């Protein structure tokens, strides 16, 4: 079979598959969601989908939600968003960093449709951005990890080297180091958000190389399963509680809670009050939750972690507070100084003490 024929047929088949999305109905506000993984990933996309279901529960007949899962970050995402807009969606949430430019491109073509891009930093009159201050949760994780590790090696599975992930690594490291000056981070970049086999491999490699605490910034529960199989390794739920892996290996978690935001934004579109905004909320506003700290964590460590969580929630403490130096030894924050949002949003450096370089 000729390649061209093969490709045409493939394109038609895919077109048919997505063209089958629901048509819009009169009177209902249609809200679209673009997901990077499957809704059953047990992590990132699972929580976004919970937010979608909350929108449905809140507004009942007045809304209709549609979603497409497993949308690759790249040109294909544009096609999916365009299709949603053509099908009558009034509001479209694009829920992964890599959808940033596709979202802006499609938004230009559909000025009346409102777009909400998660974790990005580019806005337009009809494009808002929203994200959660996951790094606040990472501070709590780092504190627990620093106390729990016996080998003093903490493994970290990164997805892509983007500011959001680097913030998490820095925040976890700073707080682990605070309670355990000997701690060392081993960082592996998986270059995927969701690939259970690869995530499990990464976890196994880190465990083989001596890590006894694994932090992950990928979406599936595979590292939890790998740690469980290895025994005596601690992990943290990522994006979702992952409570099914508690009390060991999962000792706590960072939970994303998108539901209030999704409901508020849908309401704004229905009322005609929607404006382009930049939302970045943390533990204090409830967008980031800390999952139950399990019985595997000593009581004093748990108390310390909860105290830190409360201090962050009340605004009394910021995770990035000086004195802090960058990896190359240059000064970043003076004693008592806190990082501004601009620097945090574009963070592209490790703090002093982390080994390795950030890939471009």
């Amino acid at each position: 079979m000729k390649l061209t024929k093969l490709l045409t047929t493939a394109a038609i088949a895919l077109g048919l598959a997505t063209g089958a999305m629901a048509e819009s109905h009169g009177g209902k506000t249609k809200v679209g969601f673009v997901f990077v993984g499957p809704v059953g990933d047990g992590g990132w996309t699972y929580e976004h989908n919970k937010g979608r279901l909350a929108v449905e529960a809140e507004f009942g007949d007045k809304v209709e939600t549609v979603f497409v899962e497993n949308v690759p970050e790249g040109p294909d995402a544009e096609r999916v968003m365009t299709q949603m807009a053509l099908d009558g969606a009034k509001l479209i949430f694009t829920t992964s960093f890599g959808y940033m430019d596709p979202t802006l491109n499609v938004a230009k073509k559909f000025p009346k449709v409102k777009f909400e891009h998660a974790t990005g930093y580019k806005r337009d009159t009809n494009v808002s951005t929203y994200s959660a201050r996951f790094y606040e949760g990472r501070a709590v994780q780092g504190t627990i990890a620093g106390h729990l590790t016996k080998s003093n090696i903490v493994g970290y599975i990164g997805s892509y080297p983007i500011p959001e992930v680097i913030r998490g690594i820095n925040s976890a490291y700073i707080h682990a180091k605070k309670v355990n000056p000997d701690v060392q981070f081993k960082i592996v970049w998986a270059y995927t958000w969701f690939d259970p086999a690869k995530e499990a491999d990464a976890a196994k490699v880190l465990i083989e190389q001596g890590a006894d605490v694994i932090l992950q910034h990928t979406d599936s529960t595979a590292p939890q399963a790998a740690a469980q199989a290895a025994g005596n390794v601690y992990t943290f739920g990522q994006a979702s509680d992952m409570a099914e892996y508690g009390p060991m290996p999962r000792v706590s978690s960072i939970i994303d809670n998108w539901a209030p935001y999704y409901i508020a934004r849908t309401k704004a579109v229905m009322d005609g009050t929607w404006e382009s905004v930049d939302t970045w909320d943390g533990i204090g506003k409830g967008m980031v939750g800390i999952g139950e700290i399990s019985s595997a964590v000593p009581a004093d460590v748990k108390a310390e972690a909860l105290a830190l969580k409360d201090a962050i929630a009340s605004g009394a403490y910021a995770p990035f507070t000086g004195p802090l130096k960058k990896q190359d030894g240059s000064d970043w924050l003076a004693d008592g100084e806190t990082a501004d949002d601009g620097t945090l949003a574009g963070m592209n450096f490790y703090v002093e003490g982390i080994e390795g370089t950030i890939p471009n």
Partner: protein
Amino acid sequence: MDISSINPILLLASLIVAATPLLLAAIGELVVEKAGVLNLGVEGMMITGAICGFAIAVNTGSPVLGLAAAAVGGAVLSLLFALLTQYALANQVASGLALTLFGLGLSALLGQGYQGVKPPAFPQVDIPLLADIPVLGPILFTQDPVVYLAFAMTAATWAVLKYTRAGLILRAVGENHDAAHALGYKVVRIRVLAILFGGACAGLGGAYISLIRVPQWTEGMTAGIGWIALALVVFASWKPWRVLLGACLFGGVNVLQLNLQAAGVAIPVEYLAMSPYLITILVLVIMSADRSSAPAALGRSFHASQ
């Protein structure tokens, strides 16, 4: 940088684990393509096998039954493809793509309620005597039984295709189905059997991921391995030993690059991350310089009246 933190024996042992699902799926697809059928539904059959195997293993407590169920699940799904392409003479490319989409959806449906469940552990089988060989023993002979099965199947596929009458007939059907038909061979029946074999192998490969490699059930957990298996068959020029080499290279370089990252080796990570694809393609392309070509009837429908 500290390369000494990498244990080469553990590394090679996990190389084989990483290669096994790819090898199983690719060997199955190789047989299908040798029979002249292009089934692009490998990913769908793998994921269906992954959940069928997982569900049965959890419910019966027996991982072996789970594997059997995975093979059956994959084969049943491929039967759908066989009906469409061999009897209804539907386009194989479109049917294969549809099979993948269908398999992904079906597996998500079947998998409701299995998230976060721990499957029964698969016993590691140490082959007596051989396992005691230093270095080689722990790498090759202290694996789970599926690894041995996958390697044995590669050898068996090679031998059957090359030396037996059945293999000759299968290849004849794949090269020229009209001639094979004229000689009195049942083209459609042979192709259906090949498709079922391919489905069963893909199912096994999927279950290897959900039962042994990860081990858990997550929607969409094969995450593209089926497509890599498909590509591997082509780059390996439809030769079983090259498929084995390709699977080990791909799995091996993948595990190795993670190890090098964790050890902090000063190679830019982006090169490490793309190395499995590059190295596998490079090696297999160089090896296929002998102009071995695809089965001549690959992807063409057959009907006795035409």
